[in-house]
């Protein structure tokens, strides 16, 4: 089966600063693909190149068989883009917004009304369709933001942080809707900071850092990359630096870092079994006021691959 999206060797620099370096991946029909990365990792630049907002310095993007640089209209007609911000007109009603983008994207005049109603039903906003967008709740805005990208029945839906700032009910509704679209055969490219969303929605995940894909695979494949190590989160009261130094020398601990003033994170094989040794190691140096053992998950993998340094 032909992939819905094939991108290869995508690179983009700004005045000598590399934003994206040699990024490439494919997404098959009915597949959800996640892009994970810290702030500034190059996710938005990659997405901007995929939807034709930025011209890559090198590389190719093919959507549904159409080359984005050679035939941008055909390629873009197959893409639905959901920007991170609510990219709609606040002074217009939900229905007016959808109608505008239907016409802009060239839907036949007679089909506009029916398609708008379909999408309003799809995002659950038929009953609020005639209210102005600036009266919508955050979740409703997010839903219609996605709806506007579905109007022209794209083969590939690209979502950039689509659930930022919404309540759990709206998030669930959005994720349920996306899963239905994927089940119906739509390809999905999804970026989010919420690991559990990516784990739930995406079949394959790429972890991006410093402009490059540093790991790619299914959730299980990625988790296996860190060797199944557990994460031990400690809260200490006392001489944290000395305790940290001691813990680094403890057998079985592969990594020990300070994450906050009195907080320490350890990566260790069989963390729960190592816990008594950990506590005895710091005994007399610092008091353990809280402890948590986290088994391997995507977040641990993500932090392992991208580090703990704060990104702006």
């Amino acid at each position, binding site marked *: 089966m032909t992939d819905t999206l094939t991108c290869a060797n995508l690179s983009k620099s700004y005045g000598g600063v590399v934003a994206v370096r040699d990024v490439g991946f494919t997404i098959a029909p009915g597949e959800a693909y996640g892009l994970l990365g810290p702030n500034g990792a190059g996710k938005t630049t990659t997405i901007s190149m995929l939807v034709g907002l930025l011209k890559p310095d090198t590389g190719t993007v093919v959507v549904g068989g159409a080359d984005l640089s050679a035939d941008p209209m*055909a390629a*873009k*007609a197959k893409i639905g*883009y959901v920007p991170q911000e609510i*990219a*709609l007109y606040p002074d217009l009603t939900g229905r007016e917004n959808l109608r*505008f983008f239907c016409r*802009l*994207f060239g839907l036949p005049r007679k089909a506009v009304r029916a398609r708008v109603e379909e999408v309003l039903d799809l995002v659950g906003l038929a009953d609020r369709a005639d209210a102005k967008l600036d009266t919508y709740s955050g979740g409703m805005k997010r839903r219609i933001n996605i709806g506007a990208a579905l109007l022209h029945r794209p083969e590939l839906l690209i979502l950039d942080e689509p659930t930022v700032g919404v309540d759990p009910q709206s998030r669930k509704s959005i994720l349920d809707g996306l899963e239905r679209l994927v089940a119906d055969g739509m390809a999905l490219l999804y970026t989010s900071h919420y690991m559990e969303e990516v784990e739930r929605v995406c079949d394959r995940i790429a972890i991006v850092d410093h402009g490059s894909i540093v790991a790619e695979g299914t959730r299980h494949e990625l988790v296996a990359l860190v060797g199944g190590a557990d994460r031990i989160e400690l809260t200490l009261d006392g001489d944290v630096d000395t305790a940290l130094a001691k813990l680094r020398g403890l057998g079985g601990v592969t990594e020990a870092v300070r994450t906050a003033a009195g907080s320490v994170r350890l990566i260790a094989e069989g963390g729960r079994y190592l816990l008594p040794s950990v506590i005895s190691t710091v005994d007399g140096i610092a008091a353990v006021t809280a402890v948590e053992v986290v088994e391997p998950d995507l977040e641990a993998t993500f932090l392992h691959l991208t580090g703990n340094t704060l990104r702006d």
Partner: protein
Amino acid sequence: MVRSLLTVSALELRTRVRDRTALIIAIIVPVAMATLFGVALGGDDPPLRATVGMVDLDGGEFPAGVRREVMASTELDGVLTLRDLPGRAQAQSALDAGDIGAAIIFPPGFSDSVGAGQGGKVDVLTSADTPLAGVVANAVVDRISSLVRARTLAVRASLDAGVPAGEVKEFVERNGAAGPALTLENDPMAGGRVDLSVYYGAGMAALFAFFVVGASFRSLLIERKQGTLDRMRAGPIHGWVPIAGKAVVGFALAMVSVCVTWASSVLIFGSTWGDPVAVFTLLLAHVLAATAITMLVASRARTDAQADGVIMVISFVAAFFGGSLVPLYTLPDLLQKIALFTPNAWTTTGLTGLAGSGAGLASVAVPIGVLCAIAAAAFGLAATGFRKGLLG
């Protein structure tokens, strides 16, 4: 492509009408400003200090009569100065150098030709830089033309009645058949009056065209900020569609604005702006230039607030130097030369000339050409700016 463009334009127009910027900036404020100026200052001609060159290659009674009447006119004393020049070439040089504002040229044999009933033709040289002097010169020549027509008719009638050719001149003068002798009335610009309601109406039209069209490009930058521009560009449309859609509406609303200001001046004050085709074409060229300049600003601005500020500054600087706020002839020479870089100066000068002279489209060909050149240059730079920025 066309459907997408019309869709963007329709939304822009709807937004502008809904938020009332179209009504307020395009119609109410310019009309109100022009009306206020007209009420306060209208009806009085702007103070004139014109020097008109006189080339007398005839040496007969007509040139002498003109000189005598001008010198005797109390109304023109201290306002109009005649400067004798030896020939057409010298008059043209003086005009180009700005030493005179216009020139009247009497060809050799003019008086004899009129005396023989064969009529005659007087040339007038004018400059776009000094339209009011041109108005005065044309007014003087209009008087001469009336007299020439009357004298020619009288001579021909006398000849037909059998008066010998050698006695016709004396016969006509003795019987007063040629009408009154050449006299200049106190209003040298009758029929070509330029009052301040026209002057400031034109100025406000030129100024507000920038604001009206600038609002459309400001909304383009707002769309960039709110993400709708990227959403449009990510769709299957040409990248220029959002820009062109905004430009079309800005241009159309600015045309409505200048035409409404023009119409209000005519309806409220009974002013005459001159040949409608020429006025419309000149206003069209001005709005085109304003569209291109504001588009250039939008192509380089980072935010809508920055674009707003820059357009405001450009509009007022162009209005001041271009004579939209202060009559051009009151500015020092250096500033008058700087004014030539503003579209407002060419528009105001062209409109003033049309209002005063009753001339047609050909008389404003130069201002229209300059405005189109400004528009072409600004459009070119804007296209480059958009390719590097918004569409990069």
